[in-house]
């Protein structure tokens, strides 16, 4: 991100983050999908293609999540205690 002094310990920077641009840009390019044919199960292209973009969005965000997640902040790391000490 645009911080001037990136922390030595942690960072949100990752080349994988660029993947997020794809699902932000593609669904806005109406000229790509504003047509009736080819139809799929009776759905005009306009509609089924935008449903397909949901899969694109989920795919890209999932990949970025998986490669950038922090092992320490796991789901079961601390069930209810507010401040589980973290090993550094």
């Amino acid at each position: 991100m645009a911080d001037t002094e990136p922390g030595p310990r942690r960072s949100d920077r990752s080349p994988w983050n660029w993947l997020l641009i794809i699902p932000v840009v593609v669904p806005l390019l109406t000229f790509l999908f504003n047509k009736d044919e080819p139809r799929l199960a009776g759905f005009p292209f306009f509609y089924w293609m935008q449903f397909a973009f949901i899969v694109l969005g989920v795919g890209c965000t999932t990949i970025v999540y998986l490669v950038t997640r922090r092992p320490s902040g796991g789901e079961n790391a601390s069930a209810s205690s507010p401040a589980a000490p973290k090993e550094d």
Partner: protein
Amino acid sequence: MSGRHTTELVVFAVLFVIVSAMGFVAARWRRPTTMQSLDEWGLGGRSFGSWITWFLVGGDLYTAYTFVAVPALVFGAGAAGFYAVPYTIVVYPLVFLVLIRLWSVSHVHGFVTPADFVRARFGSSTLALLVAITGIVATMPYIALQLVGIQATLEAMGVTGHWPLIIAFAILAAYTYQSGLRAPALIAFVKDLLIYIVILVAIFYIPHKLGGWGHIFGAAQAKFDKTPAPADGTLLNHNNQLNYAMLALGSALALFLYPHSVTGVLASKNRNVIKRNMAALPAYSFLLGLIALLGFMAIAGGIKPVAGGNGKPDGNTVVPLLFDHIFPSWFTGVAYAAIGIGALVPAAIMSIAAANLFTRNIYKEYFRRDASASEEATVSKLASLVVKIGAVLAILLLDPQFSIDLQLIGGVIILQTLPSVGLGLITRWFHRGGLIAGWVAGMAAGMWMLYRIPNPATKKLHFGGSAYPLSDIGLDTKMTVYVGAIALAINLIVAVLATVLLRALKTTDGVDVTRTDDYLADEGDPKVVQGTREVEEGLAT
């Protein structure tokens, strides 16, 4: 009242009572030692894991009004109403990296509202006040519109009069008061389960009854071909494509600026929960897309919207009428309950978010600097009641159209907090004076453009929509653009120019009490005791 309506009403009432009981029991769920703090009452202890967050934020963002209004839009205008789908695809990757920073800095500093963050980041209580007021004003009509969702189902069941609505909202107010954010979090499970069941059944059952998808789209196109309006159809046309993309992007930028969205995010317990949800929440977009298509099914099913309170055909009634027309009565009751309960979750979260803004950024800032955590919780609980009473009065005493107009305006004005909240999370480059100037310019431009938009269909001269015709400023085109995006662009230009100017004049800027590392913190990291940073920086008052 017919026997059919009685069955629907009984199913509806039973589900409503179950959910209300859950709302009251929620206070004991994941029971805190005390409910008397905003962290507990207003943010559920900041402890929600991935599943709860998914249901909570999903129930928060995809509201009953959405479920009624989006298909109504598709029913009326066709493809242009489908923008809700690209909107909810674009939003998650767009905010992915920003929301984790918001979570981290709020975790470290104990922020409850977006305005809390702005105050600490830019050292300006004036800017924080503007952000808080913008949030409250944008949220209020949104809450009122949830009532429109309930009302549409009640009307479809033949229930008239104000009392059912008042009772429903009184129950909602009571358990939100008692259980805080835990109530909508628990109810969201039921609500979403019902919605998923109803929509999955609808999406297979209705096309089967109506002769297949090809026939449904054909019937829709035939209807749009007959209308004189040039902008409708099952595809976009030359003039509204740009508006479609701008509306999707503008709405996506606005969504997580709404205080209730921030509440859902801050209630999660760590960064991974947020990231995982950014990947999983689009499941709701799929649902929303299917719901939008109910509009076409209503056309193919020959549904005619019934007249609303103002005597004009009310498009919001098409989905309830379609269900009533197609489903057996008991399942129609389930479907109506899904919409009605679907209104309760967001209404609760929104009123909590608006109440927190009032408490933290108006009451504490300007009236009681030394308010304790317990006093904050009490004020917020009372404010949440006031907010809900206001919403009920707005729907009962004013034309519901007024709330719809206000919600439209709400989307435009909440975007004007993007430079301070959204960009503020990424950079501290802006001068606080520049942000205030940008906010004023963006608001003024947005309101002026909205004022200039007529709606020929409802014979309104002003505030007729959010698609601004470029011909209004003398351009020779029929193209329209989304007001919010243009107002935001003006806001940004003014904020940049004013920042450069104020820096050149060496005007004092506010002090940033957040640090680079604060934006990367995670669960278990040390929190700043409130006020210590200010003392370190020599800012204590």
